[in-house]
């Protein structure tokens, strides 16, 4: 049996781990880095670049370099999140045929799934080079708060990358698995995961080889990049005040500012002040202009304080869901690069009344947990069992635009619930069922996973037909729906066309294309 890898497909960086003699090991890429930027670029002469290579040329080729595409995956083009990305990113976001956001790079338009698959393929390659054998099986992590279509797209991306995705697991859960590996204690664990683009909080319970997720919550649109953006905005404002030049208009300058902001942020996690030097950032009549500004930790903390306190609000909500108080938590684990920031660590420590656990590497722990979960699934050794929950309530839109919850959030998966529906008009021969995920009572405010029409209902007075619809959430958190007309016993096969997910044909087309491209590379 081949080896199984764990991939943390991050917003900014990705990481891959494999089991080595019973121990999970993070695999460095050819450059010796244990994480690889989740970036993809197409150069002017049509070459495709991934990872560090893509990042290195991002400044000179920002329009054709994708970063943070994870923020778009599985979303609708019309969502506010897409709008925000389109506004902030130098690359062009266009509307795809399924109303999904796609990205134009040079001549070609890429789906977000495709871009994720390119990063995953790179991680697969990194693993294969290190262990010297082909890899097929993988566990991929996603933010706990990802909905069904985001998970489905990630799974499709794995397929396109030539991986057999054993399971999609939640990032904080993976971190807890890595923490719990080899421990026999009974503990309650809180995982605070502030990554590049997403924030998750999960509460888990560990005991005798079983890890139970008690509650989970978060925000898929809040992360380290928001910190960077605040710094960039600050730099732009300061520069305009002093020099009277608006750097926003220049995409190359923006990209340099972004890089500098990220670096300054990291510096300020260990230092009190840092200097930002960007020579030749602009041109004026009097000649080239430079940017030279100083930033101190207190200023940064004042800029992002509200983001951090926003995360603590979510923490509080999730604990409430689990009917726990901050004092009930035995261990707090920090995950994601952004948790290196002292302000974040202090806020978390203050809330829980204890310092976070020091023993895990916030950049690598998720990939490690994913590899451990893959191992536990595939191999006889059943020393680890994960009892996961669904992060979002699942339901349907009912008459009047209300949201009827059929499976509540934080229900242990796998789960199946059945519900009976009927018609609202006489002789109605079809019913349309809109499947939604979210927490609002107003259907329109939740994510539409898909809709289907159940037809062939025998003409009858309204309210007479009884259609039994089953909702399944499998262990991957992926939803499927089926329906049966109880009067006739006839099963209706139904596919939920999640927005943004690709059909099997599309997946095959992309696989072929990428393989074609790989051949081109080697020539």
């Amino acid at each position, binding site marked *: 049996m081949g080896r199984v890898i764990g991939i943390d497909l991050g917003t900014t960086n990705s990481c891959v781990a494999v089991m080595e003699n019973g121990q999970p090991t993070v695999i460095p890429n050819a450059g010796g880095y244990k994480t690889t930027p989740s970036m993809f670029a197409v150069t002017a002469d049509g070459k495709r670049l991934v990872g560090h290579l893509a990042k290195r040329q991002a400044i000179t080729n920002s329009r054709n370099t994708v970063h943070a595409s994870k923020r778009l995956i599985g979303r609708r083009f019309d969502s506010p999140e897409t709008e925000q990305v389109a506004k902030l990113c130098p690359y062009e976001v266009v509307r795809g045929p399924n109303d999904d956001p796609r990205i134009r790079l040079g001549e070609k338009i890429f789906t977000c799934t495709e871009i994720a698959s390119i990063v995953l393929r790179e991680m697969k390659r990194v693993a294969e080079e290190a262990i010297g054998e082909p890899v097929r099986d993988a566990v991929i992590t996603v933010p706990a708060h990802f909905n069904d279509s985001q998970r489905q797209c990630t799974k499709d991306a794995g397929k396109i990358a030539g991986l057999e995705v*054993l399971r999609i697991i939640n990032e904080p859960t993976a971190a807890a698995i890595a923490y719990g590996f080899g421990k026999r204690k009974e503990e309650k664990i809180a995982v605070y995961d502030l990554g590049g683009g997403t924030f998750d909080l999960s509460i888990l*319970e560990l*005991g*005798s*080889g*079983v890890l*139970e997720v008690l509650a989970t919550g978060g925000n898929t649109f809040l992360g380290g990049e928001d910190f960077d953006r605040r710094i960039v905005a600050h730099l732009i404002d300061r520069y305009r005040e002093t020099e009277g030049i608006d750097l926003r208009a220049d995409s190359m300058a923006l990209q340099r500012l972004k890089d500098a902001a990220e670096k300054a942020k990291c510096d300020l996690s260990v230092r009190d002040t840092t200097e930002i030097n960007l020579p030749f950032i602009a041109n004026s009549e009097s000649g080239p202009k430079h940017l030279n500004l100083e930033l101190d930790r207190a200023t940064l903390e004042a800029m992002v304080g509200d983001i951090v306190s926003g995360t603590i609000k979510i923490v509080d909500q999730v604990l409430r869901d689990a009917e726990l108080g901050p004092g009930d938590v035995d261990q707090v684990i920090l995950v994601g690069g952004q948790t290196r920031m002292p302000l974040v660590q202090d806020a978390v420590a203050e809330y829980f009344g204890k310092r976070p656990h020091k023993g895990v590497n916030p950049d690598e722990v998720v990939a490690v947990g994913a590899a451990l979960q893959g191992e*536990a*699934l*595939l191999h006889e050794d*059943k020393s680890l*069992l*994960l*009892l996961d929950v669904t992060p979002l309530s699942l339901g349907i839109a009912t008459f009047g635009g209300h949201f009827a919850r059929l499976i*509540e959030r934080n229900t*242990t998966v*796998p*789960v*199946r619930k059945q519900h*009976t529906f*009927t018609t609202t008009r006489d002789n109605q021969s079809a019913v349309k069922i809109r499947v939604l995920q979210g927490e609002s009572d107003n259907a329109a405010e939740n994510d539409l996973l898909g809709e289907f029409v159940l037809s062939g209902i025998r003409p*009858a*007075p*309204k*309210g*007479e037909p*009884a259609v039994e619809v089953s909702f399944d959430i499998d*262990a991957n958190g992926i939803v499927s729906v089926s329906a049966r007309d109880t009067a006739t016993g006839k099963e209706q096969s139904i596919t939920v066309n999640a927005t943004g997910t690709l059909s099997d044909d599309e997946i095959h087309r992309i696989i072929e294309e990428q393989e074609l491209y790989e051949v081109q590379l080697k020539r």
Partner: protein
Amino acid sequence: MRIAEAGSNASGRVPRLASGRDPRDLVLSPAEGYLLSRVDGRTPWRVLREIGGLDPCDVDRCLERWHAEGWLEFDEARSRAAPQRARSAGVPADTGSSSPPRAPCAIDPALEIPVEAQERILAFEARLDRPYHEILGVPRDADARSVKRAYFELSKDFHPDRYFRREIGPFAERLERVFQRIAEAYELLSDPTARAEIERALDESPRATSSRPESARAAAAPRRRFHGLHPRELRVLAQRKARAKTFFETGMAAFQAGRSIEAAASVRLAIAFDPSNSAYRESFASVQRKASEERARQLVREAERALELRDMAGALRLYEEALLHQPHDPSANHEAARLALALGEDLRRAKEYAARACELVPENAAHRRTLGQIYKSAGLVANARRELEAALKLDPMDAVARSELRTLA
């Protein structure tokens, strides 16, 4: 493990009933019958000598004889313990059931799941309607920690991930059912409010307590289902009950107003939303009867309209549908018979309708005449003559019957 280890001598082999032979044809003493009943395809010879109820030498003698006579087979190749296909205990000679290899029971050693695990799952599945604390195997007063520990331990055995990517056939679905019930038990028993409700419910039906599980099972008659009593499940339940009540009231109002089809639909929905309410079920029978009558009347009217439009096939279909609702309507039977005859489709069906019409109203000349015509078409001359003559006797003025009779010979 109840299964034999590898053995080259006879005593390690596992006898099973030869397929295609009925052991009831054997002449056996009761003791031998008992021994035969122990042959289940997974108990090895060695064990049969212990449990066969006979002297070990007699066991050997019997088994050898039956094998020589072809009643038993051994699977020599089956060295590594797996029985071919286990059968439920007991054998036809014992119970008088018809064919020796009973319908294969659920256990299948070919699956990638150990036989003991299969047995455990089946046993667990059989008890899924037990009270929650019995599902988890904890005492009623177990504290939260023991409940959780029990849940974790059971999850290790019954979570579907335990057999990830294994070929486990129907056990995949079983595991899912079992695990969901375990998870539900844990969820509800971990919630103080829900648990208090469960305790109350258990106190109301003391026979279902764990102190006397056996007697409770014996008296299983109206087994009590504990509905979701978690606060949010309670809320859902209350909502469903309220909706059921609304449907029922709407239904009964429609019934009073004579709209019985609508009434039946509403009452059916009320039952769907609140299956435990016996009042709904009781009302449903009478409402449904009225609704059937009304629906049949509607269909007959539609059939008549179809006939006006000369759509005979459509009319026949509508009459037949009406008969599904009101099988004892003589005129609908008669019309269906006439149409089936005229369409020349299926005379057997035509005859059935006509015969039923005659049975329902024997003294009707038209019914007799139609039946006679059908017999005539089918070439059954004697029957045709009998019916046509009967028709003429009932109505001497029936010219059609007379001319049919004339042309019969």
